[in-house]
């Protein structure tokens, strides 16, 4: 803990993100049931933690971050017009019933498969770009290298693909 305290704020944040981003994202996803909203909320959580890092004296970083994550997610759900958003509870329960053990549960795979379906609905080249990012988990630099394109171009395409996916996702959720 002492060695962590010695790190500067950016390094501490980087370390926190590496360690807890999956957990924070999953908590946000469990509460909201919205993949892309969870992305925004996770970002907010870490940003909030970063701002209050100096004030944080507790030892349980994990609980602290999860507390911020649940608060932000609940705030999001409380905000107008979002009460009707269905959660992934049913999904979780179904998976729990189907699967024999926790190892058999592959929620991530399921989410990814769903994202892949949405990616395929995009027009080229965004479908490929989105698949590379969300399904294959490739970074922008890797994609740029593979496609022999400028990094900035790929970053812009990722940004646009994300926007399109968000729209499809929202439409799908509200339907």
């Amino acid at each position, binding site marked *: 803990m002492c060695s962590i305290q010695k790190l500067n*704020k*950016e390094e501490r*944040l*980087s370390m926190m*993100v*590496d360690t807890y*981003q*999956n*957990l924070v*994202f*999953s*908590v946000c*996803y*469990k*509460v909201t049931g919205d*993949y892309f909203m*969870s*992305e925004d909320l*996770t*970002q907010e959580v*870490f*940003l*909030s933690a*970063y*701002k*209050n890092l100096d004030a944080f004296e507790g030892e349980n970083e*994990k*609980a602290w971050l*999860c*507390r*911020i994550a*649940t*608060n*932000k*997610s*609940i*705030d999001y*759900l409380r905000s107008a017009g*979002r*009460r009707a*958003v269905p*959660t992934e*509870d049913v999904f*979780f329960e179904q*998976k*729990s019933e189907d699967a024999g053990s*926790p190892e058999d*549960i*592959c*929620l*991530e795979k399921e*989410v990814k498969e769903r994202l892949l379906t949405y990616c395929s609905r995009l027009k080229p080249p965004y479908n490929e770009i989105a698949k590379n*990012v*969300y399904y294959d*988990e*490739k*970074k*922008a630099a890797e994609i740029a290298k593979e496609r022999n394109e400028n990094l900035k171009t790929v970053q812009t395409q*990722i940004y646009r693909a*994300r926007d399109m996916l968000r729209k499809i996702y929202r439409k799908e959720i509200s339907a």
Partner: protein
Amino acid sequence: MREGYNDLDDKELEALIADVEKNGMIAPPVYLKELIMKAAAEEEQAAKGTGRSMAVGNRDIVIQNKEYMLRKAKIQFLAYSFKIAAAAAVAVFCLTAIPMDIAGGALEKGDYMEERIERDIERYQQEKEKALADEEGGGLESFLGRWLKSRSDIDVDGIWNNFIN
């Protein structure tokens, strides 16, 4: 919405974390860390440049430095004032110093026509005076007679020339 999440106490939070960890976690998009670090750097920059950040409950707000805001407002006001003064000066200059051809070149054209009319009138006056002088010398009849004769001589010569050729 899960109503049970409305007020999570420590036990409920622990249960939630355990549930998430047990049921498998979802990896966020690969670019998320990059976005977070970028946003944090921007936040730091904003806090350094404009004021200090302060946490109020769950919401973080950036309190702008009062002096900085006042200075910024003054600079903005001076800039706008300068712009307006410059625009007014240019407008006055355009109205007074630069000669404007509202008629679209018609003035120059008008001068030319006037000159021409004056010249024509002058020529007319000269011819009239000449004619009057001739009249005084031999009368209008003699003037016309002379003129007709000269015309007929030319014509007769023309006719003869045509015959010969």
